[in-house]
């Protein structure tokens, strides 16, 4: 049994189907990328795993337990944490308050201080800015807070939705480095990205999502060499 196992899910918004018979799996300790263009259904997939949406059919298992009809809070309590697209910080709250809210779930609350030290070590910049209001941070700093807030929840599986979105090339490099570091410290990562080159380079495996279906899957290194991916996503 896999760590995370998605089996043939179909997801709808009202009458409109967005995800079709999608299956994937993530093993403990892996970094797995999901790549695909705008509107492919990447965010919808992550929302479904987080139980913000429920599949009309199909199953999702995490550590062998079904996630059927769970609430988003229960998913966090079980150790699946999502850093949502567009950061979604608590805009009028300070950096510190944002981070502490990340440690809200009972599993994480006990080790809040320890987690804080860890994320401050990872992002020294945030330590300098603990009392700054999140809304006034630069885009790069906001993404650091979003990731740090996710780490405060003590994830077993961290899901990141387009962390590089809207960042300058230098910052993109450092964000991906950070993600690799998080994985190296033992957290399993499911990474959704449109920056195919960077994300596949740091991943073990990858899936290509097109129109709500898995179009291709395999070792990240193989996908990077694939002619279809080179043409469609890398502009080569």
């Amino acid at each position: 049994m896999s760590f995370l196992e998605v089996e043939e899910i179909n997801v709808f918004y009202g009458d409109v189907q967005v995800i079709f018979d999608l299956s994937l799996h993530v093993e403990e300790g892996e970094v797995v990328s999901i790549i695909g263009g705008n509107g492919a259904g990447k965010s919808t997939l992550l929302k479904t795993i987080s139980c913000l949406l429920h599949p009309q059919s199909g199953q999702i298992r995490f550590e062998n337990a079904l996630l059927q009809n769970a609430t988003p809070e229960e998913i966090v309590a079980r150790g699946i944490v999502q850093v949502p697209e567009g950061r979604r910080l608590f805009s009028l709250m300070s950096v510190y308050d944002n981070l502490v809210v990340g440690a809200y779930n009972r599993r994480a609350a006990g080790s809040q201080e320890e987690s804080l030290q860890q994320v401050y070590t990872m992002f020294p910049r945030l330590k300098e800015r603990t009392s700054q209001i999140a809304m006034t941070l630069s885009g790069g700093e906001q993404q650091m807070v979003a990731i740090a807030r996710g780490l405060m929840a003590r994830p077993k599986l961290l899901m990141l939705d387009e962390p590089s979105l809207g960042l300058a090339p230098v910052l993109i490099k450092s964000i991906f480095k950070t993600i690799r570091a998080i994985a190296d410290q033992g957290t399993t990562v499911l990474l959704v990205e449109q920056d195919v080159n960077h994300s596949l380079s740091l991943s073990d495996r990858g899936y290509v999502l097109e129109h709500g279906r898995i179009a291709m899957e395999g070792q990240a290194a193989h996908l990077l060499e694939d002619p279809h991916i080179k043409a469609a996503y890398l502009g080569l």
Partner: protein
Amino acid sequence: MIFVLEDTINGILMGSIYGLTALGLTIIFGVLKVINFAHGSMLMVGMYVAYWAVALTGLHPYMALFVVVPVMFFFGYYVQDLIIKPIFKAEKEVREPITVIIVTTGIWYILDNLTLLLFGPDYRILQDNPLRGKMLEAGQMLISVPKLWGFCAAVVTAASVYVFFQKTRMGRAIRATSLDREAASLMGINQYKVYNIAFGIGTASAGIAAITLVPFFNVYPTVGVLFDIKGFIIVVLGGLGSIWGAIVGGIIIGLIESVAPQFMTATWTEAIVYGLFLLVLFVKPSGLFGVKYDW
């Protein structure tokens, strides 16, 4: 001149009590994004609970605090949990569901009529309570003692709620939910539990307002309506969702009500209140202290 000063002080004191009655309205709006039309009725319920707690035991009116605050907290908590939550769940996709507002209007009618049925239309006042008509002499001025205590209660309550929201785990979760429900639930926060607690806190603060009113104010089934309309004006003036805005907004209304009649016929005071209300809506729709919805 001394009369103007006296009216100013009494206006500030009464106004802070208006602010306290509106505090819960602004808290509930800040978190649930819904105007609770039953808020005045909940204040009325608080007044009856306080009235009977004192009338039946003969205790000092302010001792009712220990009964009213927990009773009102759980009253609000369960009104949200049992009546409002199911509607929120049914309208998950709607940001400001109108059906919830309609339901709070229903709760208003039910509470007012149930009270009428149980206790009749009589005006009740706590006879010979130690605070009734009690005045403090300061120079040539007379300051109402129960209103002075009301002022203290308003400041202490607002400050306590503020600190709770700023410094506690649940307080931060409530603010996070008010800013972004979905992101908050991705951080493991149960949105509906937060709503229950916010509703409980808002209702309990109406209970504190009720206690400060009961020693000098008549209790009757529709007394809430009086404070409802003032409450809406106050929270718009102060900024929907702003704790201190509610207190300051209340004081502004209290001042207009007590000072303006010195200079014009009393009928004009209401015109001034509504005029100011419209002016603020035009010039600064977010209210005097409205910084979106955070505290």
